[in-house]
């Protein structure tokens, strides 16, 4: 396994935010995650990359606590993933913007704020933070894709979580909006929030401190963008990823 900036931080004694040991998940009759072990340090942006169906969402759901786990352990902020005291400290953005279409943006965010026990001011702040303050009274059914994602993000941010788990937040968004979102992620990380962002667009990996490369339920590599380029000798991260896949399947074939 190539080393990552997370590993370096952990070696220096920083406590991991997420610690996963030998995680196995079976969904339907097929294994979704095979014996996965990884540790993620505080304040990093970790990109979870891999083709569709490789288990990214399943892994995120295990961390957030909505996935039945067959074996292994998931420890988040020192507690088992999904336990009650964690729910205020972990924000989750699911893959489809799961907000209520028949409500206005501000109503949606206020509702999630109340679920976390926060007041309306926190809701307003969250809406401002994602840049939707001009649209706060717009009905969610009338929003564009990017606005809907940002509204959903506001709902996840409202509780000021220590860990943000974002499932494909930039899918289907234009490049301008993507850059904007990543800037916000960077700002959050600088403020101390740990982010786990999944994507199947390899080029987004450059924005991350750390990369987790997955394929078919296996963790292929835990590395940084720079090291990945070094180790595979490719400049494009997409080529680098393909090269890693080829290397991991070659011994099995040979």
């Amino acid at each position, binding site marked *: 396994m190539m080393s990552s900036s997370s590993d370096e931080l952990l070696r220096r004694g920083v406590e991991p935010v997420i610690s996963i040991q030998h995680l196995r998940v079976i*969904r*339907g009759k097929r294994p979704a995650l095979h014996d996965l072990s990884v540790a993620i340090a505080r304040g990093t942006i970790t990109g979870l990359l891999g083709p569709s169906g490789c288990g990214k969402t399943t892994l995120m759901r295990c961390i*957030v*606590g*909505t*996935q*039945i*786990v067959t074996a292994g352990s998931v420890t988040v902020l020192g507690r088992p993933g*999904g336990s*009650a005291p964690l*729910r*205020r400290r*972990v924000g*989750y953005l*699911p893959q*489809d913007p*799961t*907000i*209520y279409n*028949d*409500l206005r943006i501000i*109503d949606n965010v206020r*509702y*999630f704020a109340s*679920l*976390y*026990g926060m007041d309306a001011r926190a809701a307003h702040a969250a809406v401002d933070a994602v840049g939707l303050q001009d649209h706060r009274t717009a*009905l969610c059914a009338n929003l564009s894709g990017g606005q809907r994602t940002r509204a959903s993000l506001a709902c996840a941010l409202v*509780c000021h979580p220590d860990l943000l788990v974002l499932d494909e937040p930039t899918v289907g968004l234009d490049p301008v909006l993507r850059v904007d979102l990543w800037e916000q992620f960077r700002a959050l990380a600088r403020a101390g929030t740990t982010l786990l962002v999944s994507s199947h667009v390899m080029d987004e990996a450059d924005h991350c401190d750390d990369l987790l490369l997955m394929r078919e339920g296996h963790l292929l590599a835990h590395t940084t963008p720079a090291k990945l380029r070094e180790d595979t000798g490719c400049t494009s991260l997409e080529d680098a990823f393909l090269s890693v896949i080829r290397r991991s399947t070659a011994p099995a074939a040979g």
Partner: protein
Amino acid sequence: MRILRQLAGDRRSVAMILLVPILVITLMYFMFQNVPHRPGTPTPFNNACLILLGLFPLFVMFIITAITMQRERASGTLERILTTSLRRLDLLVSYGTAFSIAAGAQATLACIVSFWLLGFSTAGSPVWVFVIAIANAVLGVGLGLLCSAFARTEFQAVQFIPLVMVPQLLLAGIIVPRALMPTWLHWISNVMPASYALEALQQVGTHADLSGTAVRDIAVVIGSALLALCLAAATLRRRTA
């Protein structure tokens, strides 16, 4: 509350919830107007109105709750809500309360129209009719929440209505009195909460004071509603496959 806000945003639904019972009861009033009846006994309209006032809340609330809950499960908002600090019990209570408030509004309007405008009368106090209507609404919410767990799509949720509601209403005695039913049907109707709901209504219709039977029946309805809510809580799983 969020649920009521969603409902309020949907003006057509609000209109339907509030006005449809009134329209149906008024329709029945005119239907029965010329039907001859023996003097000294309640008019056929009176009988029909009593049944409708009590059972409409059960029926309508079941439909609304089952479909709304189904939508939450299917759209993923339920899973997202369960990742927050909200407890499952709180979620159920908030659903129950929101829909009960809607049912209360419906029952109030229906009762006002029936008692004042259409000349509906009961031996017992109208307040008890109202109370039973609300109890039935809560029962409808509980059953709706429970059945929504078994429907994978909205299409299936809708088909639960004829499956769960119609036999119950028929067996409760709205067309054929329970006493005249074959024994095996009578036994089945004994375990259906709707039978007790209807009996409570009939008791209020014929007795001036609240009879012991009526009190027992109301207790059964509320008990069934709570049981359904508890079972529904068991179906709200945080962790799914």
